[in-house]
């Protein structure tokens, strides 16, 4: 089905959070304030690598209106953070490892006083050699950035004998692909409000993708029991993985506890750039060989990821990349090795696509080159080598069988955009058009061996509202709207009957993270588990209140109805009042994982095929996206507006990854500090046509329901663009973002003018 408002019919609904968003009434956590609050600021290192000799805070402390100046000595608990591997200092002790490293923090009565306080702190540094290249960082001569050296994580995967297979190959393509340090660029920068409460409790109002994980990390830093901390984490002005790790929370929390006053922190864009996560820049070497018929015999890959100064989820991103450089194809032999390396560059971490973006850009580039060598149609070449439904996953692991791969392949094969790819419309002779396509499979969930809990609650509240209570976050994807639609469609409730409770650790159960394309699927599964017991209980309570057998009652809009659904017998409010005891049901289960014991290997996959048509201006070298089509096999569509928005939005982000975005660094210092030099796509860049086709069929008996779509829109666009550019210009580019200079052709008349002939 082509997704749009018309085809969605009544399922296309105004989002529950919509009215407050379009009127500006919605209070984001960074919009909050409190009477008497202080402004928090963080002093960050001006050097990418230096030793700290001394930190002098006396002058700053003396300023009237400055209430606190804190350093590492003021951290009561663990002076480190990191979701899996806590290796980043909250406040640096004796060394700074990147330009965003925090050295001190202040709380003052005004922003101006806070700025003055920062300026009044004197830090004595001894400069150390900057390690800015992940290859050099691995040399024995390189300074060691961490006690264990400069390798955060090394991993490999192999099957068959690659060297032997290469010797039998008819064609071999060997290329090196490079990808940029992309920035999440959520419009709302990091921030929040931190309030010390009665009884030693602390309330944290600050965006994150996993409230309970923030609570755990903050408890560890503050030396407090977890239940002393309440984390309120939604609504969020965009995240894309970037707010998954702690950012301002440790500083806001420490300053609030030290001063006993509410503290607000809100990053400027430059501070967000400097301190925030980025996508791992990767260099991926691939050598791939085929026989005369086009079957892939050997695929050798080596990945080097620049993880920057600290770990966060760098190891997990690399594992994901290793899985996805193998991807949806069959090989006689495969050998992959990957290394994630510490440098003094900005910290790389979790970002929509999670290593898949880089992997798939390289892998699909190989497929297009091999097809060309063979003289085969690139789409037929992919089909020839595609994994079959009964095949194992990329890492040899058992995966949930679907026909998604073939379904999306078929959908694109007959799409007009793809069928008419050879037609070139005539315009100015310096404008050239081309079409390219990519084929992807993308795992969801955190993968084997990583705790990946899920679950939620349903309750009938005292005021008669049906409460759906989940530990997930709303950062724009439409989670609230999707949950509301599920409750309407699968339970028969009316929108007004329902109250959705998320993003508050005092109120919600552990549902795991809102990451890895997992939340919609896990809400669906939770509701599947809760539906029977919850509805039966409602009917049973109603039955005893009404003295009517449950078989003659129905759950519906507004309350309990008779079995022909023409009389409302009892409102939910009346039911709540009359119920014998609290009606509340909870479920808890892990995200489905493969029985194959390979760390990080995925079990559930979404499949997509994407084609784009571009126009290249040969004078400027600029690439413009004219049309794109996405076929996505992700099981039933839970919320058409949300699904469409994820694919369109993920794609828009990937256009930036392919064409304009790179956080440029020179010797560990950011050159792109704001949106004047860091260019995300604007309206003018993304006003082409886009078609999103959802393929909803799942094999009979499939019990996993909707698959994730949060990331898959963002992983196939870059290779499709690169191929389209090649078709338009005959130039193959391996480095993103595509450098317009490499596409520019000097017109004949200019050569003449310069030559003077």
């Amino acid at each position, binding site marked *: 089905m082509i997704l749009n408002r018309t085809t969605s019919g009544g399922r*296309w609904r105004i989002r529950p959070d919509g009215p407050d968003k379009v009127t500006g009434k919605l209070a984001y956590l960074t919009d909050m304030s409190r009477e008497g609050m202080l402004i928090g600021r963080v002093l960050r290192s001006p050097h990418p690598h230096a030793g700290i000799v001394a930190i002098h805070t006396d002058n700053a402390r003396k300023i009237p209106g400055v209430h606190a100046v804190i350093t590492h000595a003021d951290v009561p608990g663990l002076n480190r953070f990191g979701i899996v591997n806590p290796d980043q200092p909250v406040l640096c002790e004796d060394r700074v490892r990147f330009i965003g490293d925090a050295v001190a923090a202040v709380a003052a009565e005004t922003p101006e006083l806070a700025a003055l306080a920062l300026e009044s702190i004197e830090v004595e540094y001894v400069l150390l050699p900057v390690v800015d290249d992940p290859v050099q960082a691995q040399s024995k001569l390189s300074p060691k950035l961490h006690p264990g050296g400069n390798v955060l994580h090394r991993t490999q995967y192999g099957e068959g004998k690659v060297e032997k297979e290469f010797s039998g190959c008819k064609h071999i393509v060997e290329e090196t692909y490079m990808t940029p340090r992309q920035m999440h660029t959520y419009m709302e920068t990091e921030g929040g409000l931190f309030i010390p409460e009665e009884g030693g409790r602390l309330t944290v109002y600050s965006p994150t993708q996993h409230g309970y994980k923030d609570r755990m990390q903050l408890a560890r830093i503050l030396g407090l029991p977890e239940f002393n901390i309440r984390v309120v984490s939604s609504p969020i002005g965009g995240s894309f993985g970037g707010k998954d790790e702690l950012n301002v929370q440790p500083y806001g929390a420490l300053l609030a506890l030290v001063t006993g006053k509410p503290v607000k922190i809100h990053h*400027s864009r430059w501070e967000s750039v400097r301190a925030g996560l980025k996508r791992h820049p990767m260099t991926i070497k691939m050598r791939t060989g085929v026989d005369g018929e086009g079957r892939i015999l050997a695929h050798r890959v080596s990945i080097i990821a620049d993880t920057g100064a600290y770990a966060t989820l760098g190891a997990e991103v690399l594992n994901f990349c290793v899985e996805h450089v193998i991807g949806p194809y069959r090989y006689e032999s495969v050998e992959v090795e990957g290394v994630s390396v510490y440098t003094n560059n900005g910290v790389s971490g979790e970002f929509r696509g999670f290593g898949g973006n880089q992997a798939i850009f390289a892998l699909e580039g190989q497929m297009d080159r091999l097809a060309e060598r063979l003289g085969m149609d690139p789409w037929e070449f992919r089909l020839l080598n595609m994994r079959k439904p009964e095949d194992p996953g990329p890492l040899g692991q058992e995966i949930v069988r679907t026909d998604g791969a073939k379904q999306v392949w078929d959908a694109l094969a007959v799409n007009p955009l793809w069928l008419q790819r050879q037609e070139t419309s005539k315009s100015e002779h310096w404008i050239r058009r081309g079409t390219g396509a990519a084929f992807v499979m993308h795992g969801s969930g955190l993968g084997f061996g990583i705790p990946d809990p899920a679950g939620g609650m349903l309750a009938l509240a005292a005021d008669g509202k049906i409460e759906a209570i989940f530990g997930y976050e709303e950062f724009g994807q439409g989670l609230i709207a999707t949950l509301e639609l599920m409750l309407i469609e699968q339970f028969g409730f009316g929108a007004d009957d329902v109250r959705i409770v998320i993003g508050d650790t005092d109120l919600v159960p552990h549902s795991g993270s809102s990451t890895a394309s997992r939340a919609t699927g896990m809400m669906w599964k939770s509701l599947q588990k809760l539906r029977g017991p919850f509805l039966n209980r409602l009917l049973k309570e109603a039955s005893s209140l009404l003295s009517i057998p449950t078989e003659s009652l129905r759950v519906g809009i507004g309350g309990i109805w008779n079995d022909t659904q023409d009389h409302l017998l009892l409102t939910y409010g009346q039911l709540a009042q009359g119920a014998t005891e609290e009606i509340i049901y909870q479920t808890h289960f892990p995200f489905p994982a493969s029985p194959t014991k390979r760390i990080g290997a995925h079990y559930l996959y979404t499949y997509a095929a994407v084609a784009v048509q571009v126009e290249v201006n040969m004078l400027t070298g600029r690439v413009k996206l004219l049309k794109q089509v996405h076929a996505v096999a992700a099981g039933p569509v839970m919320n058409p507006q949300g699904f469409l928005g994820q694919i369109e939005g993920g794609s828009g982000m990937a256009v930036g990854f392919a064409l304009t975005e790179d956080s440029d660094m020179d010797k560990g210092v950011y050159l792109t500090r704001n949106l004047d030099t860091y260019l995300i796509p604007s309206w003018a860049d993304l006003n082409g046509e886009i078609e999103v086709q959802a393929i909803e069929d799942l094999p009979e008996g499939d019990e996993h329901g909707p698959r994730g779509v949060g990331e898959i829109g963002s992983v196939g666009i870059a290779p499709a663009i690169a191929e389209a550019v090649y078709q338009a210009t005959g130039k193959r580019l391996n480095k993103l973002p595509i450098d317009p200079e490499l596409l520019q052709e000097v017109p004949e008349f200019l050569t003449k003018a310069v030559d003077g002939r």
Partner: protein
Amino acid sequence: MIHKILAERRTEMDLECEINGEPISLDVPPTRRLLSILRDDLQLTGTKVSCEIGRCGACMVLVDGQQVNSCLTMAYQCDGKSITTIEGLGSSEVDPIQQCFLEEGGYQCGYCTPGMIISVKALLTHNPEPSAEDIEEAMSGNLCRCTGYGGIIRSVQKAVSLRRNTQ
């Protein structure tokens, strides 16, 4: 010591302007940005802060009906002016432009949305029948990171055709 000067400044001006239809008088330093006046002094937080250099449009407001980045507008520039923020649009019922965004799903996280809607308002106030180029120019100063602009483009197209039909 710019920070010292800013921290200790005492010079204030009497700013007289109209905000969302109400006359207002404030004692503020003449260089205080309109963005701060709105968000920090008046708690009109529908106007968002993001790049603070006039590149993203999250802080867009109307000054005498023109779209303006409030992060680049100083208090003294607002004297005698009429300022409309997102809160001043459709205060009794939602503006038709807001309704179009709701119906077409022209937002996700919503952080760029107030600025986006202000820009559409400015466009349609002055140009009831904008061409595709007019729209592109009016909207290119507003960045969105969530939607890829798909829903926003559909919302604006709808608002444009609505405006054309109600002339």
